[in-house]
């Protein structure tokens, strides 16, 4: 009886504790619907208020106050196979499947651009870049920006090219069209207002003249401009590259730990997007079925490639932060005798290109204007993910996209294309070799594991010396491995699972794969792949680079 009492009490207590302690009766490692391809935003975000960003505060906070959490950990929003599910932040495009060149050239554009009469609704003479908003003949709203007189075609060309590329990567971007306008075709709408040094007032024809005086004028008297179609939805302010929006119920992953924001460091480096900060993005409230959700957009690519929007890109761009203590102090103390290496870099004199080059470019040391919390947190697997997307862009498509900038100087097109391609190669060489490059693992019904090597596929490395594989049975409920057999070493990317592994007919098997190459020590970082039984065969359910 006492025994009965003791056992009953102990069992009841233990079961109760197990029910209350989430860690013990834990979530399984893999759910039946893994790997997910879409991260569902299920909550209604219609209650959000617009969040303004102070550029000065953003600079101070990120430069001096160490914003965000910098715990060295894996990105938190990736799927179980280390990919980014589609969401309001990112839509897998060329990273998921190849796109034809004409689709890449089209980019986000859904039309031929503004048409009919342009009626100005508001203007801006002050600030970084003067411009105006207008409605075209169909009533669609556009934001119009011009090239600086010192560098015709530069900012508009950079904007067109980078928009298409960032769209191809998977980000939400506006539709940006090249347009040519003449002064006489511009009408001022009723009630159109202007903001100048005297504040806000009604716009007059001489204001349009003053605005166009600050724009590059073509030989025939017309003006080339970027017409940026207004984004769908109601503006909700800007997102930061760290933390979450406290008013957005769907925003559950700290931004500094999101894969698509960390990986953006690679895209930004490739395209010299040093202005990749909060002021150059926009959250918009859009309908999603019966709900309203926030879509997170990137915009304003006028300061990419060789363009600094109002002048050629600064030589410092990409090489040093606005405030970088070490080189500043060295320069001060050596009375200027220390010359930062990037100061000595020479650039060709092509006004439409501005300042960009590929010889000095070093992907590992590229920097934006000031620290970006997500970029700082980027780990090798984040950069690898991004580099694979870069690799998925065919060179032919890049050439065609640069052509859409319609530079009147063929030297500009040729130089920019060559530079982008050379920088692409450096990106791939650096980041595809920056971690274990094994990709696309498959397990046949007979237990043959095959995989590919992303670095070899893109010709930035030659064959591995060997691969090693350690097989295990995986228990999904307890998240534990039980090794089976000894470590295998192979020289080609395939291996046979041990017979005793398959004969046990486990629900999950796992393989820890390493690659070895004398020139690429990072290849030996571990890669764990998981397969779940699917009928008579196996499906990939998990992939963990650097577990």
């Amino acid at each position: 009886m006492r025994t009965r009492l003791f056992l009953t009490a102990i069992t009841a207590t233990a079961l109760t504790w197990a029910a209350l302690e989430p860690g013990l009766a834990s979530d399984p490692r893999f759910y039946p619907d893994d790997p997910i391809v879409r991260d569902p935003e299920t909550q209604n975000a219609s209650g959000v208020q617009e969040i303004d960003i102070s550029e000065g505060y953003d600079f101070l906070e990120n430069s001096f106050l160490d914003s965000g959490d910098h715990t060295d950990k894996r990105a938190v929003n990736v799927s179980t196979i280390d990919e980014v599910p589609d969401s309001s932040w990112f839509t897998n495009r060329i990273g998921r499947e190849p796109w034809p060149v004409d689709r890449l050239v089209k980019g986000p554009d859904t039309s031929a651009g503004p048409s009919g009469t342009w009626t100005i609704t508001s203007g801006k003479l002050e600030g970084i870049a003067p411009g105006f908003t207008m409605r075209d003949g169909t009533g669609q709203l556009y934001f119009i920006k011009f090239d600086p007189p010192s560098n015709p075609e530069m900012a508009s060309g950079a904007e067109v090219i980078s928009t298409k590329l960032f769209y191809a990567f998977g980000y939400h971007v506006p539709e940006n069209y090249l347009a040519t306008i003449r002064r006489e075709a511009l009408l001022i709408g009723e009630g159109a207002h202007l903001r100048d040094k005297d504040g806000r007032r009604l716009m007059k024809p001489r204001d349009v003249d003053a605005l166009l005086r600050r724009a590059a004028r073509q030989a025939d008297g017309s003006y080339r401009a970027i017409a940026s179609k207004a984004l769908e939805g109601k503006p909700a302010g800007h997102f930061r590259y760290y933390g979450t929006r406290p008013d957005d119920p769907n925003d559950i992953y700290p931004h500094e730990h999101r894969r698509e924001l960390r990986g953006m460091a690679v895209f930004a480096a490739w395209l010299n997007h040093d202005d990749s900060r909060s002021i150059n993005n926009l959250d918009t409230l859009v309908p999603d079925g019966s709900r309203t959700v926030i879509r997170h957009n990137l915009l304003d690519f006028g300061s990419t490639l060789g363009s600094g929007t109002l002048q050629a890109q600064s030589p410092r761009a990409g090489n040093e932060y606005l405030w970088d203590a070490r080189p500043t102090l060295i320069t001060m103390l050596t009375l200027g005798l220390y010359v930062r290496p990037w100061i000595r870099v020479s650039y060709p004199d092509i006004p439409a290109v501005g300042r960009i080059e590929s010889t000095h470019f070093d992907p590992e040391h590229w920097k934006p204007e000031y620290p970006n919390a997500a970029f700082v947190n980027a780990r090798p697997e984040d950069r690898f993910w991004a580099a694979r997307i870069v690799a998925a862009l065919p060179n032919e498509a890049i050439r065609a996209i640069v052509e859409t900038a319609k530079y009147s100087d063929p030297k500009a097109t040729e130089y920019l294309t060559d530079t982008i391609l050379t920088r692409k190669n450096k990106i791939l060489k650096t980041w595809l070799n920056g971690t274990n490059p094994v990709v696309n693992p498959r397990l046949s019904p007979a237990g043959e594991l095959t995989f590919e090597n992303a670095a070899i596929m893109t010709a930035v490395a030659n064959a591995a010396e060997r691969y090693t594989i350690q097989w295990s049975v995986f228990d999904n409920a307890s998240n534990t491995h039980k090794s089976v057999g000894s470590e295998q070493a192979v020289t080609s990317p395939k291996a046979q699972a041990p017979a005793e592994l398959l004969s046990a007919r486990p629900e999950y098997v796992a393989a820890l794969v390493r690659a070895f190459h004398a020139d690429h020590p990072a290849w030996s970082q571990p890669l764990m792949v998981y397969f779940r039984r699917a009928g008579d065969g196996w499906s990939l359910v998990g992939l963990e680079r650097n577990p």
Partner: protein
Amino acid sequence: MNLPADTPWDIVTAMYSRIAGLALLMTLMLQPAPLLAQDTREAALERQRAEKAKQVEPYNPGKLERALLWYQEVNPVQKLAPHNGFYLQYGYQFKPVGSGLGVGGGYRHDLFHRNARVDLGAGITMRNYQMLLADFSLPHLADDRIELGVHALYRHNPQEDFWGIGPDSLNDDRVSYRVNFTDYAVRAIARPVPWLEAGTHVGWLSGSIGPGTDTRFPTIEDLFTDADAPGLAAQPDYRYADVYGAIDYRDQKNNARAGGYYSLTWRRYTDLDFDLYNFREIDALVQQFVPIFDKKRVFAVQARLMSAAADDGQQVPFYFQPTVGGSTSLRSYNDYRFRDDTGMYFNFEYRWEAFSALDMALFYDLGTVVPEVEDLRLSTLKKGYGIGFRFNSYKRVLYRIDIGFGGTDGVRYFFKFSKAF
């Protein structure tokens, strides 16, 4: 050990077992997760988002962010100094070097569809320097190539410094004096191309000299007479006229890193009362900026010659004599330290960018004053050298700290909201 059935102990243990089972059941019902919970990833994520939905709150910026957002939105500096309307600003037009911190303000407005402009302004400094101005101009004639204007200007400068005349004046002889000017002038300025400007002024000027108000030093009458400070005893009214020309191809006027600036001015003063102080003066200025390493290093050179020549038997009043010394000429000495009928100085600077908001400089200055141009000798130039810190934007120097050594008056420190040259 077996106990007899139906004993109190049996009843208690049986009850306890039932209670334990009931407690377990209740716990499981109240805590459905995780054992009964989501069985899909999608459900797990929905639960996380539903949990967040219970806690949403508006974004609440901190104090510093709120202040900077307010500044960005309101732009108080522009609101205080609009292009048209009442304005308030740091400093004012015609504010002399060494007059201290000051503010200015007034009312200005475009007229006649921006073809004309009026400016009624005033300024005052912590040392009680004052200025009143009424200016009317037609600034945009001939497609912005010609400007015509007229002004009435009053200046009260109560703490001007004087050490005597000549290069050998003594530091211990420093005195303070007051000078007031009332000036009515018309101007015509032509800018046929952006890099070329030429103009003329014609005006009437009335001045008066009096005791200075700087209590640190004696007033001028205590140490000097009209014999060693010509014009001290009485000050005539003047009619004056000048012509000038300037070539300016600097990349930025207020923070030049490339290009040059060359100007020549000739001015004539006619004594309308005593026929004692008729004189003419020339002022030649050359600045050259030679950049290397994409303008991150700049070699800057400045040379200036100012010479006033009185008519036969006449004198140049001391308060119109050229001066050398101070933050823009000879930085090993105070502002206006040396004066005579002719002054000359050279400045050499090596500037380097520490980071985008700070340039540093090493400088070497040479300068002197003499009675006549023929008396100038390079061997008698006074020297100065030092180091400078210039906080700047791309377009202008915002704040400058220059430290000058090498003079006989000790180390000089200059804190200025302006460029050196």
